[in-house]
């Protein structure tokens, strides 16, 4: 891999909520009332190469959206660092956050919430570039037209309001708004999850076209494994704030190594597999407020042993370009899976 454009180094993010007055008073008698900490991200390290599309997959509470937000500079990491082209994305002490974060643009899940309903589409698209001086003022209109055409809409739509568009069209506008900033990295957070299948295919095609035309680097955050397989080069699987497996997409889908990845693949319904075959994962996702000690997946893992309960596994190499965080990552999982 060439020098990474984006380097995420040992990033942890904790959200702490201080107890309210009533909770503190009750806490005096019950011993509660202590601050509540959500461990959204724990020790996540990732490199993203220029022109790469990296998929980030996991269930709710796994920290995939928080990771996207940390990369976009919306949240500062509690520890660790995110660097874009060698410069930190978010550094609150020096107050340099806003200049750098223009280079990472996010596209959100719900295009009904992410577009200002009172602003014309053209104004929405022009706002960022104008504020940051990315496009000269006299070229703004022409640039907006070009952007709209680039995402498959008509230039004349610039004068319309968001309510005049369907969900798929709005998501195109959201993509155009992100592209208007000429970003180095796009973060798509469940960007096609709220769209109907037929519309989802249109937006995925658009994304793949843009990727080829513009050489985009992107993080594609999604819970939908089939969509991720279709558009991503590499895939990171997350569970309870940790990265559990990272591999090129074709290798991951052909041979998932982590027991969680295997279970995730098994529980996803696919078209044409026939009736009633769900090898569901047992149990529930633990709360990120009180993550289990050791490996976060051990309470649900069919292969868990004593070591898994005591010690969190580190990401280690499992073949060229792929890593897994599992104590059984020495061929043991495959042996046991064969036996099971």
């Amino acid at each position: 891999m060439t020098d990474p454009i984006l380097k995420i180094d040992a990033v942890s993010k904790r959200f702490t909520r201080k107890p309210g007055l009533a909770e503190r008073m009750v806490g005096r008698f019950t011993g509660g009332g202590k601050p509540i900490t959500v461990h959204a991200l724990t020790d996540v390290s990732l490199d993203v190469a220029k022109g790469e599309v990296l998929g980030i997959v996991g269930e709710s509470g796994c920290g995939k959206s928080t990771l996207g937000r940390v990369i976009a500079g919306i949240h500062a990491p509690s520890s660790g660092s995110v660097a874009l082209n060698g410069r930190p994305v978010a550094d609150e002490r020096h107050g340099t956050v806003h200049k750098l974060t223009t280079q990472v643009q996010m596209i959100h899940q719900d295009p009904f919430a992410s577009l200002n309903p009172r602003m014309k589409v053209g104004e929405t698209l022009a706002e960022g570039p104008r504020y940051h001086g990315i496009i000269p003022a006299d070229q703004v209109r022409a640039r907006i037209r070009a952007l709209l055409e680039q995402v498959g809409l008509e230039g004349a739509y610039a004068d319309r309001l968001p309510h005049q568009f369907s969900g798929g069209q709005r998501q195109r506008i959201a993509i155009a708004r992100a592209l208007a900033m000429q970003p180095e990295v796009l973060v798509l957070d469940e960007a096609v999850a709220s769209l109907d299948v037929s519309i989802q295919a249109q937006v995925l095609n658009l994304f793949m076209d843009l990727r080829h035309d513009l050489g985009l680097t992107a993080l594609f955050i999604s819970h939908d494994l089939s969509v991720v397989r279709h558009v991503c080069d590499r895939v990171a699987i997350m569970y309870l704030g940790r990265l559990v497996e990272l591999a090129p997409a074709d290798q991951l889908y052909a041979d998932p190594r982590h027991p969680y990845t295997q279970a995730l693949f098994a529980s996803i319904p696919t078209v044409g597999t026939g009736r009633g075959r769900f090898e569901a994962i047992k149990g529930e996702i633990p709360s990120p407020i009180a993550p289990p000690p050791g490996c976060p997946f051990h309470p649900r893992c069919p292969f868990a042993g004593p070591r898994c309960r005591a010690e969190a596994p580190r990401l280690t190499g499992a073949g060229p370009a792929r890593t897994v965080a599992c104590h059984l990552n020495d061929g043991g999982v495959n042996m046991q899976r064969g036996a099971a």
Partner: protein
Amino acid sequence: MTAALDVKGLTTRFETRAGHVTAVNDVSFAVQPGRIMGLVGESGSGKSVTGFSILGLIDAPGEVSAGAVLIDGIDLRQLSDEDLRKMRGRKVAMVFQDPMMTLNPVLRVGDQMAMAVRVHRPMSKPDALDHARKALEVVGIPSPAERLKAYPHQLSGGMRQRVAIAMALLHSPSVIIADEATTALDVSIQGQILAEVRELADTTGAAIVWITHDLAVVSSLADDICVMYAGRIVERGTAEQVIGGPRHPYTQGLLDSIPALHEPGRKLPQIPGSTPQLSRLPEGCPFRPRCPRATDLCRTEPPLDVRDEQAVLCHHPLERA
């Protein structure tokens, strides 16, 4: 065998400023006991309104304007409000996408379940609680006796949805209608619940209508599938027929646009345009403007083409060998 649920010519209209909008247009299907019927469609196709119409839950400005809904041979549309209320929850129950729509946030799970039991069957509260506990056990809730004492907010999303399903099961209804019941859940939890729903249908003999936008869920869960578009059922058949050999161009288009069925990175075949507004439907076949097979003939009402058990509403259905 008589169908547990037999819907005939169901039509639901809404009065809007733009005139009458027909959200459910002459919909007919039947579900046998113990079978799961997947009702699939994109947003605005009328699949949820169909579910609501079956239970008579359409309020003004909407009305069910035609058709019959037979449950165990009784036409719900002929019943008085009071008799219909007695059917709901007892003979036919519904599970919604958001379990908090079903659960009262200020009542303990046990209290509201006992209430639901005693509405239809007079019994003491301890007996009703016991009945509720058994229902929770059926849907795979661990330590059900403790869960009865919990408030809904103390349960996870998956647990709440299980409670909602358990409430639907309380009176062993003949028909259960589930509207996007696992859409908001994580895949691993969805897998657990789908497995339990399949088992429920097999063991209790309930007829289940599973309304969803997710073709993959329906393809692995359902016995039969109805595909809705713009208020009509455009294709109906067994799951194998509809998924394995779709005959309506819309069904074919939907299946084609699923990424899992294509080589990664390839352009996906897409259905052009977007779903039409019900107030401005084109004349004839509503799918005509987006259909690759459309001809001038499609400006007229499409006929119902039935082959084996697969029925398709189309002038030019795809031919299967």
